[in-house]
């Protein structure tokens, strides 16, 4: 099984989730993160002082999927999350050795 992690722009979350749901991905875990990258941050003001915000709000989606579906999952995410503007984010794929569903004790592919 593989873990697919995608760091995306926050307002794309709904689109990506819907696109994934359509291809049958029914489980994922999402968190709010801050991204640092090529995308230049906006500037904020505080009582007459201006400063640039380096860290931009992003959403990290993590889902563990079967080896076979990785391809489809990543291409679905790319499609749904792309705006073409800098800062669209990245996808990372890594290996997961074991999965357990807490409720039932099922493991691995059954537990995805």
């Amino acid at each position, binding site marked *: 099984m593989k873990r697919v992690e995608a760091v995306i722009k926050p307002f794309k979350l709904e689109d990506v989730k819907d696109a994934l749901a359509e291809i049958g991905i029914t489980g994922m875990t999402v968190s709010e993160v801050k991204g640092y990258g090529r995308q230049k941050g906006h500037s*904020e*003001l*505080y*009582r*007459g*002082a*201006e*400063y640039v*915000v380096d860290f931009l709000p992003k959403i990290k989606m993590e889902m563990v999927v079967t080896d076979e579906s990785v391809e489809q999952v990543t291409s679905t995410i790319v499609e749904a999350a792309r705006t073409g503007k800098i800062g669209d984010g990245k996808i990372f794929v890594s290996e997961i050795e074991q999965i357990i569903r807490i409720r039932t004790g099922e493991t691995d592919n059954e537990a995805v």
Partner: protein
Amino acid sequence: MKRYFLALLALPTLVFAEDTLNSGDTAWMLVATAFVMLMTPAGLALFYGGLTRSKNVLNTIGMSLGAYSVGTLVWVLIGYSVAFGDGDLIGTGKVLLSGITSDSLSGTIPELLFVAFQGTFAAIAVAIASGSMIERVKFSTFMIFAALWIVVVYAPITHWAWSGNSTTLNFGEMDFAGGTVVHLNAGVAGFVVAMILGKRKDYGKVAIKPFSPVLVVLGAALLWFGWFGFNAGSEVAADGTAASAFLVTNVAASLGVIGWIAVEWLVYKKATLVGGASGAVAGLVAITPASGSAGVEGAIIIGLVGGAFGFYGVAKLKSMFKVDDSLDAFWIHGLVGIWGSIATAIFIADYAMPENYNMGSQLVAQFSAIGLTIVYSGIVTAIVFYVASAITGGGRVDEETESRGLDETVHGEKAINI
């Protein structure tokens, strides 16, 4: 209070006998006092609390709450006596409100109410000063400082300006509601303590993000609301002058918002809410001494310039000094307070213009009061702070406390647990 000034203007108010209670005036002053009370543990607490970093929000709010509590105690114990007792340099004879009963009057209102009203001024003055010290001063040091400062700095200055006693240190300045007595005084005191404390470790290095501009605006709105009590209440009557003071206060605050945001927009192409809220406060500070005499045109100018000046102070002038005035108490209350005091002598409504008014000599009076306040408050505040530091084993928290934040370390709490 302000009897001197009132006499100067020969307002008809004084024609009322001083010895009958007027229920309308009393009703207004009960409310005005409550309004000013709200300014400290709610208005200023949120205004400052919202401006500070999330790790020091509660500490900052605690300064205002503590200042109000300690200030109230000290005021009834001794402060009122020093400020409004009889005597030349300082007042005496009213320790623990001795001799005052529910029948005692101060003009047309109960003297006990006058005591309460004036006490709220003392408390907010020292709470304003806390803004310069925040994020590094010890909580205990500040509490001791607050108690001492009200007695030896605030009360004497009040005595000279407002006691109505023929004191040698009254220059005939016009300060209707405390531009010099409260705001400049507090701003200078804050600045001096900030100088003594030294800079915060992060000052000028790390971007400082305010906890919440929402709280800043709410705080400013409550200050604005309370300021009606502060300024129109300083008439100590519900009459035409109070109405005028109310109106010009409202106008100047509005123009303060506009002034600050307009300049900010020109410079940065952004209109911040922290700026709008700060502009309101700057406008209010500016109109304070003039609120009993300025007309609507004057209020427009005083507020607009006050707002613009506030921005200019914190955005430009501040960086020319090496003093870390955390929440800009000096720039907004001190600098703008000076502007207000000068403007008071310049912008007077026709209907409030004293006979034979001489602007030149009035300006001299204003500058004399400004000078006296800066010198006296500057020096004595420093002494008071050294004493408070000594009593509490140093006035500044240690480095780790500063970097972890005072909320966690001193108060054992967090501003928000989601």
